């Protein structure tokens, strides 16, 4: 019997190695896998590359991971926001590498990784300083940049409901980066607010089919805070 549901955080994050590329879901605190990020702090992997829309706020979660010096590089679209104090400290101190990627390009690069597309062209960022070093090509009279797939070794995501096959639903705007990151990583670990019986999810409504999910852990943490 297939059963992707694991009983502990240690099991959920087992095998994440130093140097991994870790994709972290969520937009702000909505859809953010807080419990998995705390567990990653415990787990100890270092020299990480983190892909996340934001660079953390306050002193916990991703910010704590940065503060502990565990992240070598961060890839994000919006590093600086209210409360991103730790990121700014470590960045100013030269302790972290930053790759700024437009949000849509970041999403599509991960979707491409999941979809077996090594590279694609986009008009986003043409002529801007984020085009530096990228191949530019004219297609049908318009200029485009070549963007490469962005793969993860691990994706940590948050879901609303999950079953033992790893099928997931999300709640409202908590969907955001989670399904795309699930596609893009070698191993996807989902924390889910609710575990349901196999067959209980409406097949027309499953947003992430279990094929993209390796492990599920039950974390009924309640409402996200807005940060």
């Amino acid at each position, binding site marked *: 019997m297939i059963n992707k549901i694991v009983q502990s955080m240690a099991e959920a994050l087992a095998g994440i190695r130093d140097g991994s590329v870790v994709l972290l879901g969520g*937009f*702000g605190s*909505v*859809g953010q896998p807080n419990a998995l990020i705390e567990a990653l702090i415990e787990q100890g992997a270092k020299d990480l590359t983190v892909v996340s829309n934001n660079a953390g706020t306050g002193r916990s979660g991703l910010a704590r991971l940065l503060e502990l010096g565990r992240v070598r590089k961060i890839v994000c*679209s*919006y*590093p*600086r*926001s209210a409360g991103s104090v730790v*990121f*700014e400290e470590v*960045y100013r101190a030269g302790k972290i590498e*930053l790759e*700024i*990627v*437009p*949000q*849509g*390009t*970041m*999403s*599509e690069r*991960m*979707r491409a990784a999941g979809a077996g597309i090594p590279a694609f062209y*986009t*008009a*986003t*960022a*043409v*002529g*801007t*300083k*984020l085009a530096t070093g990228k191949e530019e090509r004219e297609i049908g009279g318009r200029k485009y940049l070549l963007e490469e797939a962005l793969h993860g070794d691990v994706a940590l995501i948050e879901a609303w409901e999950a079953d033992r096959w790893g099928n997931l639903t*999300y*709640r*409202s*705007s*908590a*969907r*955001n*980066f*989670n*399904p*795309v990151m699930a596609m893009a990583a070698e191993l996807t670990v989902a924390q889910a607010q609710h575990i349901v019986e196999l067959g209980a999810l409406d097949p027309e409504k499953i*947003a992430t089919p279990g094929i993209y999910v390796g492990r599920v852990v039950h974390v009924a943490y309640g*409402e*996200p*805070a*807005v*940060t």
Partner: protein
Amino acid sequence: MATATLPDACKPLTREQIAARLARDIPEGWYVNLGIGAPLKVADYLPAEREVIFHSENGILGMGPVPAPAAINPWLINAGKQYVTLRGGGSYMHAADSFALIRGGHLDLCVLGAFQVAENGDVANWSISDNDSAPAVGGAMDLAAGARQLWVLMEHQTKSGDSRLVRRCSYPLTALGVVKRVYTNLAVLDVTDDGFVVRDIVPGLTLEALQSVTDAPLRMAIM
């Protein structure tokens, strides 16, 4: 530098008034993305009988207004991380689907704030210096390059009195040649092949006075 002062008789619009002025120009049935900050206010000024469908790039199509505190859904925020609602007929999508919609040219309109707009339609809205190595771009470049039309909503001048309508942007660019119209506290201007054309101007302000606070050359629209 154009740092002249405005005539006393001129009443610059407040941010709310600029938003209301812009809202007048959005036709029923348009799909619209409103950028973080002042552009978000535009939604408040659409008459209830005119259906306009708002998109938020974090994955909402058919976004409704800010809820009453008792009606908050903590999982439902917009790109500015404010609580919002979903209208009947609204739906959710993941980030790649959301930006496919943007990049694919399906939005009729995106309204962004900006630091500078140039007469060739270039826009700078994400970073105020090449020396700032960690600016936050978010979805601005995707929206600017992807929407069918980009309108900018901004103050006509900086706090220190510099013109935000320029011949060429001095700040790092967000996208090239994409702005179609600019709504400021002083005027509404189209970006044309011949540069800025003034469509509308606040009462008490002449074209000459507007030009005196604007770096880029202005022309009047022929009505």
